[in-house]
């Protein structure tokens, strides 16, 4: 019972991780952006050419 009432904020270990994660993300921000641009180029290549028809034709029977 007692532990149920003690529900609280993130424990210290979680806060520590924030500190570690933040600089890493900032440092790789430009790279992530570049990666995303490359990914979008690739998606432009593989996305169904007629998206509207594809989406319209995508009709499934209900299952479980």
């Amino acid at each position: 019972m007692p532990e149920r009432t003690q529900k609280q904020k993130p424990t210290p270990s979680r806060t520590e991780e924030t500190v570690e994660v933040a600089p890493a993300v900032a440092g790789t921000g430009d790279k992530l952006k570049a990666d995303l641009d490359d990914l979008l180029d690739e998606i432009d290549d593989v996305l169904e050419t007629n998206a509207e028809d594809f989406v319209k034709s995508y009709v499934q029977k209900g299952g479980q």
Partner: protein
Amino acid sequence: MAIPKVCGIETEYGILVRGHLHDATSNPVTASSLLINAYLAAHRRVGWDFEDEHPGSDARGFSVDDLLAPEIDTHLVNAVLTNGARYYVDHAHPEISTPECLTAREALVFDRAAEEIVWASMQAAARMLPDGAEILCHKNNSDGKGNSYGCHENYLVAREVPFGRIVHQITPHFVTRQVVIGAGKVGCELPGMTSTDVPYQISQRADFFEEEVGLETTLKRPIVNTRDEPHCDANKYRRLHVIVGDANMSETATLVKLGATSIVLAMIEDDMFGDDLALANPVAAIRHVSHDPSLQRTVLLRSGRRATALELQWEILERAQKYERSHGLAAVGDEVGRQVLGLWESILTGLEHDPDSVAHQVDWVAKRRIVQAYAERHGVGVGDARLKALDLQYHDLRRDKCLARRVGLDVLTTDEEVRDAMVNPPTTTRAYFRGRCLAKWPGEIVAANWDSMVFDIGRDPLRRVPMMEPLRGTAESVARLIDESDTPAELLARLGA
């Protein structure tokens, strides 16, 4: 102590026929049969080459009409594979149930193998179809038009645990785990709501749940399903049939989905979970949570407290960590259990501070990232078909079209183990006996089911081997017997059957 959390996944795949075909083939039931038969024909050709009486009949020589023989129209395909899985047509979808696995990680490998089997089926079917025609399969749960199909999990639970306790205690996990394992969806399929109301949501399935608990799976779907069909000794066991999850493309998500749920069930079995997280209105809450990718909305607990789904997941995780310290994780496998706890914690940490930081683990985050970036690059607004196409194509099993394969999701399995799992059963459950016997004596097995096999040993009567214990028939206990037996009759004699 909690019993081993034997588990498995059954996935109904979306199916679409493109190109000009005989009318009957565009029927999804027939197309699903064709798909599965194409795989079985190609597969059998390898295994049964020596005894084939028609060596000239190549799979590529089959015509669509051959495959549409009358028996296929009237009998739905239902095959058991040598890896112990079941591959069949269910509700107009091809479906694969993985074999029974001892751990979440094993089930992940067999779920991946199932994807590869469906992909191999698509390629085999393509060789039989006229030019320009193809069958596409998607590992998703909705067509965006209000039709849903399932990805179900199964867990072994001790019969002695009161079912009411399971229902009350597992529900908060089922409602909130979607923030970790939701597959993401563009738009909304709740009657009366549109993509203007909900442009993007966390779960594929949340819109389709209308009850807290019940027997249905196709209408008025319940968060906790009460199907009581254990496929094993009903006096000792229950099979908890979970219909509330999404089909995942992320291997991390599949592993955490199965692993975290196994741990929570072990805690419930040991009565170490508690009732205090019960929600005031689980059905409203599951949609509420799904419709809020900002993760800020709170849900009301029966106790009167309000909490976000993320906060409730933290609390469930903390209980699981405490359970590990007090009871250990033998019921789910110590090593896998610890891996799952670690992944679960790192995902919650990431979601809390910067959701995009877990785009390599969490499907709904990975999908949202490309949907948002695409919309920005092309100036596309809410409701545009291209955004829905991105959603569908995230789950496309064609290698050259699948977006999930391109977004940098972590891969936890090796190609080698997945290839092996396409044909060989897990060594750790009764699926081993089923799969090995099917591989060695395909001609002498009249029927194979989850909990029995029927052999024709060349004289009356047919011999049924019951398999009521999920953990009997493992490699450790029967591998040598199977290896050393030349015939099923010899095997059965040595088993004392």
